[in-house]
Every structure is written in C-alpha cells, then in structure tokens.
C-alpha cells in the first residue's frame, strides 16, 4: 500500500500531489514537463520533496515533520529509467544481478510467490542475451533487461518512466502484455509514467492525470494545443476514424474516474 503526498517546488511550477494506491498499475498521465518524473524521483528517494510524506506498506520513507528521508538504497523501490540506464560496462547478466548481494544463493528466490532469477530471465526472454553488453541490445531487449534488473531485488514498488517510448509499435504491444503479466505475478504496485494514450489504455488499472504538477479532473484535462508529436497525432487521427476515438478516450477516462477517486485522496 502506497500512501504519498508530495510537494516539490520546481522552477516555473510546483508539484503537489496525493497518491494512494494498493496493487495494480497506476498510470501517471500528462504532457512533458508536467512533473511526472519528479514524482517518481521523489518516491524513489533520488530527489527530496519540499514537503509531504511518503509511506509504503507502513514504512515511512519521507516525512517533512519528523525529518525522515530514507536514502534510495534502503527503500527497495525498483526503478526502470526512461532510457533504461543499463550499465554499459557490465554484461546483461551482471546488470541484472547488480542489485543482489553477492553470495552462493544470490540467484535463489526468497519469497514464495515471486520468481527466481532464472524464471524472470526466461519469462522476459533474455536468457540467451546474458553475456552481451547493453550496446549490443535492441531497444526492446534493453527494456526487458532493465525490467529484470529492477525486479531482481524484489522491490515493494516498481516505478517505470516512459518505459516503452524507445521501441517500435510491434515490440511495444508485446512488452505491454509482458508488463501486465509481470505485475499480476509479482503483485506489487507499478507506477508508470507516460504521455501515450495507447499505453495508458493498454496498461492502466488506475490513472492520474497531471497538469503542471497537479492532479486534475478528467473534465479539465485537454490535449495540449499545438502538440504535433506522433503520440498526440495518434489521438487525433483515430478521432477522425471514429474508432477508439477521443470520445472513446473520454469514455475511458470516465471509466477511470471511480478509481481515480480512490487514487486522489484530496
């Protein structure tokens, strides 16, 4: 169970958000520069919020009042970075095992319902890649390695920062399915940041819409004007086709408002 209220002053605007979330995939959805990555960094302990409180499974990670700020290395929060941040000088195997304490049983599974290193590598189809260096991997493979690396240390929460943005459509679909499967297997909350409608539709159990660092109501939420990247173009072209359109998108948002009400403890 994640309970977080984060306030962080940034040049130009202030991130101010409350998240309460149990199991499943929570999507933080918003345009670039809406503070999504800042929220992930605050949760992971890589940035310090200006104020607020972060609780995960009743462990206090950050509390302004009590002056608590648990360092990132003690939080057990997995983080899949935007460009994966794989260690270029280590092989896939060393990358994946980086978070595990060295020792004879580093590869054994510790909690019954979760998976061993071998099972994880097999599920993510990266067993044959284990002696390669990150530079020799495709975008989809890097994504899988980053996911495996983050899951290996058995996190209590997994953060994903635009994890699928660098892969092509076919791979992206495959990875979305795998991601969903992983979440169901590991039964820990995933928080995923994206600005792609498709990804949100495919993955979200709950959605928080962000604008200038604040969670906004769906009715206030509009596509940023003048956005011409292909991600937004997808929204408008499908609107013309009439299928799965913006109207559909709105319906989806409405469908999500019930869960949003849970997500936004205001």
């Amino acid at each position, binding site marked *: 169970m994640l309970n977080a209220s984060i306030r962080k002053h940034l040049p130009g605007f202030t991130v101010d958000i409350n998240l309460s979330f149990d199991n499943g995939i929570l999507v933080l959805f918003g345009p670039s520069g809406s503070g999504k990555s800042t929220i992930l960094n605050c949760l992971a302990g*890589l940035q310090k919020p200006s104020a607020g409180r972060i609780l995960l499974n009743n462990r206090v990670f950050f509390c302004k009042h009590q002056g608590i700020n648990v360092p*990132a*290395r003690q939080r057990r929060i997995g*983080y899949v*970075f935007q460009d994966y941040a794989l260690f*270029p000088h280590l092989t896939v195997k060393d990358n994946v095992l*980086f978070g595990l304490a060295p020792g004879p049983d580093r590869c054994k599974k510790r909690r019954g319902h979760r998976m061993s290193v071998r099972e994880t590598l097999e599920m993510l189809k990266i067993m044959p890649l284990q*002696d390669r260096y990150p*530079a020799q991997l495709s975008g989809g493979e890097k994504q899988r390695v980053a996911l495996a690396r983050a899951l290996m240390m058995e996190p209590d929460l997994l953060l994903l920062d635009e994890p699928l943005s660098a892969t092509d459509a076919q791979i992206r679909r495959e990875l979305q399915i795998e991601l969903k499967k992983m979440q169901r297997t590991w039964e820990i909350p995933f928080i995923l940041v994206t600005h792609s409608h498709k990804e949100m539709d495919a993955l979200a159990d709950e959605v928080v819409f962000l604008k200038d660092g604040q969670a906004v109501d769906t009715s206030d939420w509009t596509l940023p004007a003048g956005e011409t990247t292909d991600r937004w173009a997808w929204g408008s072209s499908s609107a013309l086709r009439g299928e799965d359109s913006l109207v559909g998108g709105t319906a989806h948002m409405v469908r999500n408002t019930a869960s949003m009400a849970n997500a936004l403890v205001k």
Partner: protein
Amino acid sequence: MSGPILLSLKVALIAVGIDAVLATLLARLLARREFPGKNLIESFIILPMVLPPTVLGFGLLILLGKRGLLGRFLLDNFDLQIVFTWWAAIFAAAVVSFPLMYQSANAAFASVDVALEQAARTLGSSESRVFLRITLPLAYPGLIAGLVLAFARALGEFGATLMVAGNIPGKTQTIPLAIYFAVETGDNTLAWNLVLVITGLSITALFWLNLWARKKTRVWQKGDIPRAERIHS
C-alpha cells in the same frame, strides 16, 4: 647517464601517484556539486598549468624553505629538510602536473551519466559501491589519460625543480636538468642521448594511451569483444 634517468622516473612516478589520489578525489568531490566560489577554486587548481615555472618555484621555496610555513613545521617536528633534496623535485613535479590530472579526472567524472549512478542507488548500492562499481570503471579511460599526461608533464618538469631542488648530480639532477647543464658545458653527446631517452619515454606513453583508449571505447560501443560472441548451451 643512468642516474638522471632513474631519478626522473622515480620522481615522476611518485609525483603522479600523489596526484592520482589527490586530484581524483578532489575532482570527484567537485564534479557533481555546484556552489558559490567553485569557479574560483577551480581557477586556482588550474593555475599551475599557466603560471611560469619560476613563479611556482618561488612559491614552493616560500612554502618549503627553512622559514616557510611547511618547511619550518617539517624541520622543527621531524628534522626534515625538503629544499634541495629529491623530495623537493617530487613536490615541484606533483604541483605542475596536478592540473592535468585534475582536468582529465573532472571531465571523466562529468561524462558519467548521473542516471547510471542513480540506478545503482535504487538497486541498493551504498555510495562507495556506486563509486567503485559504476563511476570509477566508467571514468577509467579518462583517468588513465590523465595519469599518462601528468606523468609526461612530471617527467619534463624543469624550471620549478631547478629553483627548489637545485642541480645536484646524483641527488636532484633529473633528465631536463641534466640536458640543460650538458649543453651548458658543451657535452652535446650526453645532451643528445638524454633528449632521445626522454622523447622516447614520452612518445611511448602517449602512443600507448591513444592505442589503449581506442580499444577500450570500441569494446563498449560496438561490443567488439570475443566473450560476447560465445554461444551458451
């Protein structure tokens, strides 16, 4: 002839050893921090590179001389005299090559992607593990480059060395000093030999550095390494 060569190598190696530790730590300390006055501090660190060697020599004399701050302390407490010993030559070589090591280390640390260090932290690594397993290996090529450049510079140090260590054959006479005084006394054969030796040493170091740097980057960038092609059963 072997006297100056051995002494030069000894002085340069020790000086670079000192630089390697101090400059690397200082660069790591300053690389990821921004604070008022950082620019000024860095200017002072780089200063020995642009100042005339005589100014450095003068400064070192002031510092290390019998009445100097450090000199008097060492003399009173340890009965150690630095000036006109080969320790003074080491001091001079270390000071002039320090900026080269610092600059290289600074650039090397700055080139390491912060996200990689952050990733290591989220994977449970302590700060020292982040440094040893991520930052240092990734900055390694730049650090080696700094070592080689600093070594070549330390080997060639003349002006400051002459001022603080003097020219005592067998004691403080390094290759550059030996060349100067060989020419001065008209011993051109000795001068030629020493010139060839120091040029050879420097070119070997630089040649090896270029070769090595190219190989190292090729491994990561193109993954051109035999182990990676190994087929697993």
